[in-house]
C-alpha cells in the first residue's frame, strides 16, 4: 500500500520530464494526472503506513496524517478537475510546454502533501513553486510576463526565508521528521527566530499581506484551470507548511502568533476592500483568496500563540481550507463560462458564492462556525464583521462577472464536466470532513442568524455605495506592487548600468586588437671600452672588499 505514496508524485514527475520526448500530449497528461489524482483520493480515503526511503535525497520519509489526508483529498479533486479542464489548452500551441509544467506542479504539490521530513517537503514545495511559474506565464502576454516576474521574485524571497529557517532546524537535528519538529524547536536557542523565518517563508505562498501582491496579478494571468488549482490547493501548501514546520501546540511563540493574527485580520479586511475596487472577476476572486487566507492565518496564529485546543484548531483549519479550496476553485472554473453568458452555470455559481459568504446550510457556515469555536475571545466580533466585507467583495464579483447577454457559445464539454465534478463534491466534502459537534453547531439557529445578517448588511452597504458613487473607482491590480515595482525597476536599471560600467579586467587586455605587442627596440649594449672600464671597476671593488 505505502508504495503508492512514492508512486503518486513520481508518476506525474516522470511523465512531465519525459513528455518532451514526444508522444500524445493530451492522452499522456490526462492519464498521468488522472492516475495521480486517483491515487491521491485513494490514499486520502484509505490512509496508509509511512514509507522510508533512505537512499533518496537526505533520507526521505513519506506518509499521511489526518490533516494531510484531508488536503490530499482536496488536491485530488481539484487537480483532477483542472486536468480535465485543461484539455483544450493541451491541444493548443505550446500545449506540450503547458503539460510539462502542469504535471511538474502537480508532482510537487502531491509530493509535499505526503512528505514527512523537512528536506522532502522543501523539495515538493520548491518544485511546485517554480513549476507553477510556467503556468502563470503560459499565455505569453505582457501582463502574464509581469505577473510571472513578480511571482518569481516573491517566490524566491519566500524560498530563501524558508531555507534559512529549515537550515536552522537541520543544524540542530539533521533532516528532521515532521513529527519531531516540536522537539527540535525546544532544543533551539532562539526558537522564535527560526519559527519566524519559517512562518515568513510560507506566508508568501499564503498571500499574507503585504506579501500577497503576486496573487492578484498571477490569478488573472494564468489559464483558468491553473488559477483554480493555484487558489484552491497551491496556496494551501503554505498552510500545510505552517502546520508541519511550526511548533504548533508544542511550544508557544506568542509574539509571532500575535503578529500572524494581526496580519491575518488586517489582510482579511484590506484585501476585501481593495478587491471591491477591481474590474476583472478573476482579480476579485484573487483578492477574496487573500482575504480568506488571512482568516486562516488568524487560526494558525492562535495555535502558534499557544491558545486554543489542538484538535479543534486542526479540524477548523481543515474544514476551512477544504471549503475555501473547493468553493474558490469552482468559481475560477466557472468564470469563463459565466462571462460567455452560460446562464445555468452563472446561476449555479451562486452556490459557491453563498458558501464563501458563509450563508447558512452551505459549507461556508461550517467554516465560519469552526472559526468562531476556536478564535480568541476578543476577536469574535471582528471575525464576524469580515463576513460583511466578504459579502461586499462577492457582490462585486457578481457585478463584474455577471453576463450582459445570453450565451454566444455553449460551454465546452470538459469545462462543464470538471466544473460539475467540483460542484458536487463541494457540497459534500466539507460536511463529511467536519466533526459531528461542528456540524451540529453550524446548524444551530444562532449560527444561521450570524450567517445571514452580515450578508444583509453587505447588500445594504453595496446598494448605498452604488447610489453614492455614480462611477465606481478602480484600484490597480496588486495594489501595493505598482509603486514598489517602479522603484524596483528604476533601482534595477541603475544597478545594472553601474555594473556594466564596472569594466571587467579582460576588457583591458582584449583592447589590443591585433594581439601583437609593438616590437620594442632592444636596449643598446655597451662596447669594449665600457666593458673594460667596468671590468676594472669590478677588479678594484672586489679587491677592496676582500682586502
Amino acid at each position: 500500500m505505502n508504495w503508492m505514496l512514492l508512486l503518486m508524485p513520481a508518476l506525474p514527475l516522470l511523465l512531465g520530464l519525459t513528455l518532451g520526448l514526444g508522444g500524445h500530449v493530451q492522452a499522456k497528461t490526462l492519464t498521468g494526472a488522472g492516475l495521480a489524482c486517483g491515487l491521491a483520493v485513494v490514499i486520502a480515503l484509505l490512509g496508509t503506513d509511512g514509507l522510508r526511503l533512505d537512499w533518496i535525497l537526505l533520507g526521505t520519509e513519506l506518509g499521511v496524517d489526518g490533516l494531510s489526508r484531508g488536503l490530499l483529498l482536496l488536491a485530488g479533486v481539484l487537480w483532477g478537475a483542472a486536468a480535465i479542464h485543461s484539455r483544450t489548452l493541451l491541444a493548443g500551441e505550446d500545449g506540450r510546454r503547458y503539460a510539462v509544467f502542469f504535471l511538474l506542479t502537480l508532482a510537487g504539490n502531491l509530493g509535499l502533501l505526503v512528505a514527512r521530513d523537512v528536506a522532502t517537503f522543501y523539495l515538493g514545495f520548491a518544485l511546485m513553486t517554480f513549476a507553477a511559474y510556467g503556468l502563470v506565464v503560459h499565455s505569453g502576454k505582457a501582463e502574464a510576463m509581469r505577473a510571472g516576474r513578480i511571482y518569481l521574485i516573491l517566490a524566491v524571497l519566500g524560498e530563501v526565508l524558508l531555507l534559512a529557517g529549515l537550515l536552522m532546524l537541520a543544524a540542530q537535528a539533521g533532516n528532521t521528521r515532521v513529527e519531531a519538529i516540536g522537539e527540535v524547536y525546544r532544543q533551539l536557542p532562539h526558537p522564535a527566530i527560526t519559527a519566524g523565518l519559517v512562518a515568513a517563508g510560507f506566508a508568501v505562498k499564503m498571500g499574507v499581506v503585504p506579501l500577497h501582491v503576486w496573487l492578484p496579478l498571477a490569478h488573472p494571468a494564468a489559464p483558468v484551470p491553473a488559477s483554480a488549482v493555484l487558489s484552491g490547493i497551491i496556496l494551501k501548501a503554505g498552510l500545510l507548511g505552517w502546520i508541519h514546520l511550526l511548533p504548533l501546540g508544542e511550544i508557544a511563540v506568542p509574539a509571532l502568533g500575535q503578529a500572524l493574527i494581526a496580519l491575518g485580520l488586517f489582510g482579511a479586511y484590506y484585501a476585501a476592500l481593495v478587491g471591491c475596487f477591481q474590474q476583472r472577476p478573476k482579480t476579485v476572486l484573487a483578492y477574496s483568496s487573500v482575504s480568506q487566507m488571512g482568516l486562516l492565518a488568524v487560526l494558525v496564529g492562535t495555535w502558534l500563540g499557544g491558545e486554543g485546543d489542538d484538535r479543534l484548531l486542526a479540524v477548523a483549519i481543515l474544514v476551512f481550507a477544504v471549503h475555501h479550496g473547493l468553493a474558490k476553485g469552482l468559481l475560477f472554473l466557472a468564470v469563463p463560462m459565466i462571462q460567455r453568458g452560460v446562464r445555468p452555470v452563472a446561476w449555479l455559481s451562486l452556490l459557491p458564492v453563498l458558501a464563501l459568504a458563509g450563508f447558512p446550510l452551505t459549507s461556508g457556515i461550517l467554516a465560519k462556525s469552526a472559526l468562531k469555536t476556536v478564535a480568541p475571545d476578543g476577536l469574535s466580533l471582528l471575525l464576524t464583521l469580515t463576513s460583511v466585507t466578504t459579502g461586499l467583495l462577492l457582490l462585486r464579483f457578481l457585478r463584474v462577472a455577471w453576463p450582459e447577454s445570453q450565451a454566444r457559445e455553449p460551454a465546452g464539454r470538459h469545462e462543464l464536466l470538471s466544473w460539475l465534478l467540483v460542484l458536487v463534491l463541494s457540497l459534500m466534502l466539507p460536511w463529511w470532513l467536519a466533526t459531528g459537534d461542528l456540524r451540529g453547531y453550524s446548524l444551530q439557529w444562532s449560527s444561521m442568524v450570524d450567517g445571514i445578517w452580515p450578508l444583509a448588511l453587505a447588500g445594504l452597504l453595496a446598494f448605498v455605495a452604488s447610489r453614492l458613487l455614480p462611477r465606481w473607482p478602480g484600484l490597480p491590480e496588486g495594489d501595493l506592487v505598482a509603486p514598489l515595482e517602479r522603484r524596483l525597476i528604476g533601482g534595477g536599471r541603475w544597478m545594472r548600468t553601474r555594473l556594466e560600467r564596472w569594466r571587467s579586467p579582460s576588457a583591458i587586455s582584449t583592447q589590443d586588437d591585433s594581439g601583437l605587442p609593438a616590437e620594442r627596440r632592444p636596449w643598446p649594449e655597451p662596447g669594449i671600452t665600457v666593458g673594460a672600464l667596468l671590468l676594472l671597476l669590478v677588479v678594484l671593488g672586489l679587491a677592496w672588499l676582500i682586502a
Partner: protein
Amino acid sequence: MSDALLPLSVFVPLLAGVCVFLSGGGARSPVALSGVLLSLAISLLLVMAVGSQGTLDHALAGWEPPLGIRLHADGLAALMILLTAVVGALVSLHAVGQFAGKSEIANRFWTLWLLLWGSLNALFLSADLFNVYVTLELVTLAAIPLVLLAGSRQSVSASLNYLLLALFGSLLYLGGVALIYGMTGTLDLQLIGERLPAGGWPVGVATALIVAGLLVKAAIVPFHFWLPPAHGGAPAPVSALLSALVVKAAVYLLLRLWAGPLQLPLSAPWVAQLLGALGAAAIILGSIQAMRQPRLKLVVAYSTVAQLGYILLFFPLAVASAWQGAVYHGLAHGVAKAALFLAAGNMLYHLGHDRVAELRGMGRPLALSLGAFAIASVSIMGLPPSGGFIAKWLLLQSALEQGLWWIVATVLVGGLLAAGYVFRVMRYAFMEAHAGPSVDRAPTPAQPLMVWSALTLAVLSIVLGFTARPLLTLLGEIPLGGG
C-alpha cells in the same frame, strides 16, 4: 687503471679533431662521428669510474707538480664531463643534419668541435691555476672560429669584440695567478688553499683579477654583451655548444675556485653579496632583454645571460643545498638550452628566418621542433617536472633557510620573466594563421636527425627532474673549509 681515463678523455677528442682535419674528402664525416662516439664512451666510462671509485688523480707522463700537469676528477668535474658528453653527442647528431651537403663548413665544424671538447674536458680536469688558464684560452680559441662558421658579417665583428675582451679577461686572470703564485709558490688548487694568507691587499687583488677575468668569459652582466650576437649569430649546433658548455666552463671555474683555493676571500660577506647581486642583475636584465628581442635565437641567447645568473646566486648562499642547486642548474640549463637552440635552429633552417613576430602558424609544419622548444622551456622557466625546477627548488630552499629574501624574490621573479619570453614565442606559434608561417625562401624541412636530437635533449631536460638523486650523489658533499 681507471685513472688513465683522465688523459684519454682529453686527448681522444683532440686527436680525433686533428684526424678530421687531416683526413680528406668523404672520410671526414665517418672519422668525426667515430671520434664523437669514442669520446662519448670514454667520458661515460670516466663518469662511471668516478661514481664507483670516487675522486681520480693522474699525473701526465708521470711528471708530478709543480712542473708536471696533474689531472683531477671529482664529482663536480665528472658531472661537467657528463654534460659535455651528452649534449655534445646529441648536438653532433644535429650537426650531421645541419651541415649535410656543406662539406667545407662541416669539416671545420668537426675539427673545431672536437678540439673544443678536448679542451673543455681538460679544463674540467685541471688541478692547477695555470692549466686552467691554458685550457680556458684553448676553449676560447676553439669556440670563436665556430661562431664564424655562420660566415655573416655580424658574426665577424661579434667575434672580434669577444676575442679582445676575452684576451683582456684572461690577462687579468693571468695577473691574478701571478700574484697568487708569488704569495704561495704553488699553482696547485689544493695547496694554494692551504698556503694563501687569510687576508690583505695582495690576496684581494689576486682574487679580484681572477674573478673578473672569469666573469667576462662567463658573460655575466655587465660583461654579457658579447654573448647574444655571438651565440645568436652562430649556426644552431654551435650556439647550442657555446651556450650549454662554453660559458658554463667559466662559471664552473668560479665554483671550482670557491671550492678550492679561494673559498675564504670569496666567502667574505660583501664579496659573496656582490657576486650574488651580479647574478640577480643578470637574471632580471637578461630576461627583460630576452623579452624584447625580435629574433628567436637572440631571445634564447639572452635567456642564457639570464640563466647563468642563477649559478652566481650560490655565492651568498654557500650551503650544501645551494651548492647542489647551482651545479644542478648548470646541468639543467645546459641540456635545456641546447635543446632550445637546436629547436630554434630548426625553425630558422626551415623558414629561412627566425623573426618571432612572423612565426604565426609554424606549429603545423614544425610541430616537433616547436614541441622540443616548449618542453625545454619548461626547464628554463623552472617549472616542474624538470631539472630547472629541482635546481630552483634547492636554491629557494637554501635562501629561505637563511632568510635571504632578495634571492627568493629574484629566483621567483626570474621564473616569471622566463615565462614571459618563452610564452611570447609560443603565443605567436599558436596564433591563427591561414597561410602558414611566412618564409624568406622556399621552406626546407629540417631533417629527422635535427628534429629528434632537439627533442631528445628537450626530453632529457625533463628527465633531469627525476634523476637528481643519483647525480647529486655523484656530485658529493659541498667542499667546505678549503681544499
